[in-house]
Every structure is written in C-alpha cells, then in structure tokens.
C-alpha cells in the first residue's frame, strides 16, 4: 500500500472510528445511566416493601402492652421511627440531615426511603428506612458496558477497515494504472538512452566533433532521461529491491555525482562551492545513496538561477545542498515531500525526486530538513 493510500485510509479510519466511538460511548453512557436507575429503583422497591412490613409490625406492637416492645428490625435494612414533629422516637440507627421532602433519595452509599404513616401507631408518623446500595449489579453493569464497547470497537474497526479499502479502491486503481504506465514506459526508455549515452562517449573519445555545444546538449538531455529512468525504476522496485548494505565513502561518492552533473552545472554557469570533508563513511546501499544525492543535486541545479550559487557541504554529521534558486512557498514546504508534488512547474519532472529522498531518509532513519526563502534560496539538509 502506498503512503498516500495509507494516509487516506488512516484519515478515513480516524474520522469513522472516532465518530463511531463517540456515538457508541454516548449510547453506552445513556444505557448505563438508564440501567443504573432501574437497579436503584428495584432497590428502592425493596425499601418500600420493608416499609410495608414495618408498618404492619408497628400496628401489631401498638396493640401489645408488654413491659418491653421488641423493635421489628430486619437486616440488611436500617430503620428509625419519628413522630409528627419529626422528633426521633427509636430505631436501629439515628441518621442526621434527613431530606424530609423526598420520598426516595441517595446519600453517599446509602439509599433512603421516607414513608409516611397514618394512623400513628405508637405515635409514629414517619418511617425512615435505609440500606447500603447493593453494588454487585452496578459492577456487573459496568463490566457489561465495557465489554460491549470493546466488542463493538473491534467489530466497527474491522468494518471500518473494510469500508476504508472500498473507499480507497478507485484511488488505488488509478495509482496502479499510473504505475503500470510508468513501468511500461521506463522499460522502453532503457535501451535507447543507454545507446545514446554510450555513443556520445564514443564520439567524444574517438572523433574531434565540430558541434561540441550540440553534443553537450544531447548529453545533458540523455543524462536527464537516464536519471529519470533510474528514479522511476527505483520507485517501481523499491519494495522488492534487494539492498546490499556496505560501508560507503560518501565524500567520494558525492564528488563522483557532482562530476556526473558537471555538464548541467556548466550549462547553467553555476558557481559551485564545495566543502566536502574527506572520508565520510556511511553504511548504506549504494543505489539508495546515489538516488538521494542525485535527486538533491538535480533539484538544486534545475531550480537554480543562471549563474547562481550551488553549495555542497558534507561533514561527519550531515550533507547540505544549498541553491540560490526560485525557493519554495513556505506553506508548500511539507507538501512537496510527497510523490507527484511540485511547487514550481516551470521545469520538467514528475515530482518524484523528494519522495525518493524521503524514502531513503526514512529507511536509514536520517533526518531531512528543507529551509527555503521564496525567490531567494533553498537549503536541504540530511542529518545522520
């Protein structure tokens, strides 16, 4: 899957899953709240039953004239009896701050029920019954809600991935078509480009040709085509390509690549400024290193002004290539790293150069910074 496809899929999944999760979370909270109220109502109903039992027991006690009256307490309930002026008469507990205007209420971990009584058996006008909330059904409800969210989360993630793939299928198809086209085209490029370059070298070596300027132009054009072929092949084979990691002398390689681009540099009359330290060694695949350096040099030459500055600095920590060219608009600096993205269309190209650089940088965990001032200069720094 391409990076753009992955990005689209992740964006879709992000929006889809977050909205689904919020919806399900709200639904679960409402469901939990409703069910919890049902559980509390059931426990309140038990308080109500206990109030009825106590009422009957008080009625019986009211008819009893023995020296002591055994208070009809029954666990797990606590109860207390009050007279009409709400004075405490007796009880298994003596609660404070009762809310007399409420029939049922919760205070901390306790449920309270205030039950009015008439006739006032033993002078009792109000029964106050309390019990500690039975947490077990509430705990079970919480577990059930979490399990529901978890299972729904998994199901909707799977559904999201399936829908996401359906969603990006047309884009994937277009990209595949483009890739097939590039693949076919590059295949056809290879032989004629190699032939042209070989023959130019032969002509240059064997014959004293009169049209030197024209020959240079042909060489430049052929090298541009050759590099384009290399880039497209690199992109096409990137995932299956077997890399041979070796200790490369990047200083030497950078000089070789500058040499390769010398015809272009000369044609644009650039002022080349080199600060290349000796023996900079890096463990890399050679083709990766060439693609990275070539694309940076190519961009710095292509988008430079005539007689502009091209500065290449290579130290133990970094490679930086600076040009005095068209620069990049600030808001586009991050965008141009993507495939087929170009800030300036005045020059030829497919917009794959910085994508390749980005891939190499990512593969070797380097850092890649672009510092640019529009219409003035661009500096690309690779830090390892």
């Amino acid at each position: 899957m391409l990076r753009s496809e992955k990005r689209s899929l992740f964006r879709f999944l992000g929006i889809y899953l977050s909205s689904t999760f919020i919806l399900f979370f709200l639904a679960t909270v409402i469901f939990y709240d409703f069910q919890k109220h049902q559980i509390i109502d059931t426990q309140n109903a038990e308080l109500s039953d206990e109030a009825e039992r106590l009422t009957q027991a008080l009625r019986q006690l009211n008819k009893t004239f023995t020296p002591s009256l055994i208070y009809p307490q029954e666990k797990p309930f606590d109860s207390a009896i009050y007279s009409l002026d709400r004075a405490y008469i007796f009880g298994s507990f003596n609660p404070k701050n009762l809310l007399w205007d409420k029939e049922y209420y919760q205070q901390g971990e306790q449920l309270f029920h205030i039950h009015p009584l008439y006739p006032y058996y033993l002078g009792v006008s109000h029964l106050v019954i309390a019990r500690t909330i039975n947490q077990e059904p509430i705990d079970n409800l919480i577990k059930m809600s979490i399990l529901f969210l978890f299972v729904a989360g998994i199901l909707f993630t799977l559904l999201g991935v399936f829908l996401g793939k359906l969603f990006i299928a047309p884009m994937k198809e277009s990209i595949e078509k483009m890739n097939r086209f590039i693949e076919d085209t590059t295949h056809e490029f290879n032989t004629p480009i190699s032939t042209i370059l070989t023959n130019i070298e032969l002509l240059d070596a064997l014959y004293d040709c009169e049209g030197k300027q024209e020959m240079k132009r042909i060489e430049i054009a052929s090298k541009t085509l050759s590099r384009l072929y290399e880039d497209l092949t690199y992109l096409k084979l990137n995932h299956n390509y077997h890399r041979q990691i070796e200790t490369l002398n990047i200083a030497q390689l950078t000089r070789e690549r500058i040499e390769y681009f010398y015809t272009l540099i000369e044609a644009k009359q650039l002022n080349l400024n080199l600060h290349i330290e000796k023996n900079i060694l890096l463990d890399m695949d050679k083709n990766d290193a060439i693609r990275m350096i070539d694309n940076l040099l190519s961009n710095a030459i292509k988008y430079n002004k005539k007689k502009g500055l091209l500065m290449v600095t290579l130290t133990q920590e970094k490679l930086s290539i600076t040009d005095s060219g068209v620069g990049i608009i600030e808001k586009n600096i991050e965008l141009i790293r993507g495939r087929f993205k170009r800030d300036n269309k005045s020059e030829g190209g497919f917009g794959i150069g910085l994508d390749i650089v980005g891939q190499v940088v990512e593969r070797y965990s380097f850092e890649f910074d672009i510092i640019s001032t529009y219409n003035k200069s661009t500096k690309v720094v690779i830090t390892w």
Partner: protein
Amino acid sequence: MVRFLVITTVSLNLMAQSSSPLLQKNCIDCHIQQQIPSELIYRRYLMRYSTHNEVRKRLLTYLKSPSKETSIMPSQFFLKFPQKEAMEMNESALVENIDAYLDYFDVRGKLVLP
C-alpha cells in the same frame, strides 16, 4: 374481651407497682379501682395525635371538662366505664399529672432492639 381484661389488669398492676406518687394518688388509684385501661387510652391518643405535646393539650381539655365530645374514646367505652367528673385541680397541677402519665407510658422507654 378476655384479652382486653387481661391487658387492663396487667397494665393496672404495673402502674400500681412503679408509678410516681403524684400520679398514683391523683389518677392510678382510681383507675385501678374502676379498672380503666390507662395505657390503652394513652396509645389511642398517641395513635391519633402522634406527639406528646398534642396529646397533653387534648387530655388537658378533657380533664378540664370531661365529656364524650372532648374525649376521643369510642362511645362504647363510656358504656363500660363511668364518665369522669371534672378534677378539682388548677391547670398547672393538671399538666404536671398529665406529664407524669405521658412519661410513665412513653413508648420510647419500652422499645428495645431485638
């Protein structure tokens, strides 16, 4: 009827055993003699009015002017027990006696936890 008599007898005996001297002299002696169920009367008033304050007020009204109208006891009660004469006591003495009566039968002192 048997149950009523048993209750009356038991409560009258208990009263006689441990009531205050003032209550004993002014009320209980006569109630025992005439077998008037004092605790039953107390419970009936309590069942109607709930608080001692209200019961005190009602009993005072009755004692100042005893009649069927000022009593809450059923009419059959007065067929069985004679209508009381007005007591020759001032209001504060009546209140003092009523308070002793209410304290003596107070359910708060009788209720116990199992």
